[in-house]
């Protein structure tokens, strides 16, 4: 009788990105898909076509900057059970012509609500934070943003 084939990989638990467009090596950074025809950048790595111009088979994967500017934000006080509030959600514009959504850290939510203008155009940088552990024991890494303090 033949040996039963191993279905599980023997890979040791390590770090895993929360979403596919976050790459952890060589250092944490985001990647996007750029349309070779019109230049639109998307955050999904597999695309059927460009939703801006319709071109197919034109995509190349490009690295995205770790620095960007806050466009808008909200402070979330009510969320799903088990999620700690308040937290700041923000839309961060990246220089490659695409925006990402994530949590702003290292800012006091109360202060931001009292003075929302401080966020507009704020320069931020990406930080890779471990946010959970998956069923295989891997640490799940998320990309979040913090202010660049001069």
């Amino acid at each position, binding site marked *: 009788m033949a040996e039963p084939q191993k279905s599980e990989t023997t890979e040791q638990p390590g770090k895993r990105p929360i979403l596919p467009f976050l790459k952890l090596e060589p250092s944490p950074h985001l990647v996007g898909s750029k349309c070779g025809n019109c230049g639109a950048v998307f955050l999904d790595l597999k695309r059927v076509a460009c939703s801006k111009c319709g071109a197919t088979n034109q995509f190349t994967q490009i690295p995205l900057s770790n620095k960007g500017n806050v*466009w808008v934000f909200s402070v979330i006080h009510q969320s799903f059970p088990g999620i700690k509030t*308040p937290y700041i959600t923000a*839309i961060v514009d990246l220089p490659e012509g695409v*925006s990402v959504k994530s*949590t702003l850290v290292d800012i006091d939510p109360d202060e931001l609500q009292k003075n929302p203008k401080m966020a507009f155009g704020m320069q931020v940088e990406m930080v890779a934070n471990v946010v959970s552990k998956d069923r295989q024991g891997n640490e*799940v890494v998320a990309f979040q943003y913090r202010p660049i303090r001069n």
Partner: protein
Amino acid sequence: MRNVYVLGTGMIKFGRYPDKSVPELGSDAALMAIKDAGVSIQDVELFASGNLFQANAMIGQRILQQIGQTGIPVINVSNACATGSTAFREAYMAVASGMYDVTMAVGVEQMGKQGLLGGGGGGSDPAYATEGRLGSGLMPAVFGQAGVEHMRKYGTTLEHFAKISVKSHKHATKNPYSQYRNEVTLEDVLNARMVAFPNTLYMCCPTGDGAAAAILVSEDKLKQFANGRKRPRVAASILTSDPYTERDLTLPDVSTLTRRAAKKAYETAGIGPQDVSLTELHDCFATAELVHYENLGLCGDGEAGKFIDEGGGMHPGLGGKSPVNVSGGLLSKGHPLGATGVANICEVVWHLTEDDRAKERQVPNAKVGMAHVIGLGSACTIHLLTV
């Protein structure tokens, strides 16, 4: 395209009906509309049924299994918050095209005390859920940010958003179909607990149950059934989806598709925003209402704050102008998702026909009504009705 008229309407009071099923709620509204129209189910030739949370459960057929299995074509429609209005549009197009003379649209939803919508991610392992880790995908977050965007561009204040909530709650006191009918003061709104900045609790619509229905007819059938009663014509029925915009990928852009729909609606009807007697627009949050004043052309870009300060959106009976959401809006009347789009049209019809169901809040001399809905994801409908 042929002229299409709204012959009859029906709506149940929005609220919570834990002892009723979705088909029952829809049937109640359908029978009201059929009675109001003065037709029978035997006269209805096509039925478009809008429901979101049970979109795979053949709600339209199950309504007919309650009120009359006549074997007519049934379309089950699902289009996020624009579900009901998209169903109305299907019924409209069926008559406008000349294929049918009498059609019915029903929008129905049962949400119970379901809480926040949106968010999620993560697939089968919650360790990969994104809510709170990669910002927020919750509806309050999306519309909070739409408000913050307006603050950023034009210096809009929290008081501007709060005033919308005060206005809509005041309107709702005159609407027996409204889920909530309590008045709130500016202080109440500003001091209520924050849900998602800048929207406090009273600036967020509730969840709930509801149903609304309409019977649409061709000109010939109008002559046959109206018996001299005034019935509005559907002067424009527009549906758009979200065009590519850079930030729409991460922050749903609720403005661009509304602006496109408004432009097309006004062109189709041959009128402008200054001709609109009343508007029912998609105020799922107070911030949404404010940005839609500009998106629908009720005021100029950047002028929404001034519009509010000068009584814009308020019922003329309360000293306002360009009345918006005299029903109480989604903020007070409620937002049972699939029902909302048809209910907005009911409200507009009642004002245009001086129906007793809008008696206490009648907009005087109403000739043109606008009903606007946004479904996130995204879909936008605008209907212009005229008498």
